[in-house]
């Protein structure tokens, strides 16, 4: 025989269980909503592609025949993120390498993995003021496609340095990595162990072709 007290207790516990289950379900739903909201607000590749109005950038395109760099202007929609901006600008330079009438032919689909910026302490850069070092992470595919030789390799580095400095003037130094790792040379010649000054691009080779000699 079940006492009246036990019956009341049983029903009270049943109601408590149902209420707790409803409460837990509600908590779970709220947690799920919160996670979804966080995921939506986190920076993603999609956010990186958010672009502003087209902007004119200057690309320094090398010419293997006379060792020169030629400034070319191009209109690009740049991402808001500065690292992504630098990457888009350099990839645009790679596009110039890929064109059929390129003066510095290099068939590489994607040459830049990423670009990072580090602050250079005041007085440690060439100008004596505070600047920024751009660390350019090149892809292994670029080093494979790069024609080997002092001239073509030096021109590739100088064109990237000049292009970065022209569009992001705060960049005073440039260091190169390949697939995130330090490497001795680009393709057997140009030194990648050193940090280059952006002003090194001003030392770019100038043509010295004798009169009458052709190219």
């Amino acid at each position: 025989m079940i006492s009246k007290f036990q019956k009341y207790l049983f029903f009270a516990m049943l109601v408590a269980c149902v209420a707790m289950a409803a409460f837990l379900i509600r908590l779970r739903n709220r947690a799920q909503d919160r996670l979804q909201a966080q995921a939506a607000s986190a920076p993603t590749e999609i956010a990186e592609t958010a672009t502003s109005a087209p902007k004119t950038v200057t690309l320094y395109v090398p010419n293997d025949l006379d060792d020169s760099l030629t400034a070319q202007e191009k209109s690009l929609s740049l991402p808001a993120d500065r690292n992504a901006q630098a990457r888009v600008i350099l990839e645009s330079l790679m596009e110039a390498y890929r064109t059929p009438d390129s003066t510095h032919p290099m068939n590489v689909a994607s040459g830049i993995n990423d670009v990072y910026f580090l602050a250079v302490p005041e007085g440690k850069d060439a100008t004596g003021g505070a600047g920024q070092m751009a660390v350019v992470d090149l892809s292994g595919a670029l080093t494979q496609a790069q024609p080997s030789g002092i001239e073509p390799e030096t021109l590739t580095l100088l064109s990237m340095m000049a292009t970065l400095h022209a569009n992001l003037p705060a960049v005073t130094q440039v260091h190169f990595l390949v697939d995130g790792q330090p490497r001795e040379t680009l393709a057997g010649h140009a030194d990648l162990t050193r940090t280059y000054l952006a002003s090194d691009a001003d030392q770019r080779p100038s043509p010295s072709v004798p009169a009458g000699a052709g190219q």
Partner: protein
Amino acid sequence: MRWIEAAALGMAAVAGGWQQAPPPVQLPQGPGVPPAVATSPATAVQPPRFVVVVDAAHGGSDTGARIGSGVVEKDITLGLAGRLRSTLRARGIDVVMTRQADMNLAPVNRAETANHAQGGACLTIHATATGSGVHLFTSSLTPTANARFLPWPTAQSAYVTQSLKLESEIDSALAHTEIPVTLGRASVEPMDSMTCPEVAVEMAPLVAGHVTGAKPVTDAGYQKAVVDAIAAALEQWRSDWKE
């Protein structure tokens, strides 16, 4: 950091490296260095010996650039270096080669050979399939004053001014042969560690023009024209380098 004693008597003293003195009578002198050997009144002062160091780039497993089908840079550079050595010796100029066979040679060993020889001119020979004519490169280091001890990675900085003059001499000689020349600054091992006037000579194919016909790097006539021009420039440099 590794340091080199510049223009010292005998070999350069390199921290952790080798040390050996060459015979006094053959001792070459760097620019601005007083006579190294005290001579007796009856003995005339020996004129400084002019030595050209020729460094054939790459070698062994380091093949360098692919110039054409079955042709790699290390073979072209060795051939050009040998041809240049013969031409210079025929003109009475002493030559020291960093390598004379297909062998692996580290950049530091090339620089050690050049610095030991205390060359009046150092040439690093390269070849490429890109561009046209001859590319001349000097170190991109900022020129500095000569000092007794120079840091190994930037030892060339004390010689950049002389290197630029040597480059200009070779440029003029090549211009007479109507071979297109381009001048530049670059950072390429082992140039920056050499304590001598140093120029990297990179031979590219000759693109057809108004005067010149198209010629590959392997063309014997083209190679001879380049080697003869460089030898003429070095003969001129022999009388200019001390100034």
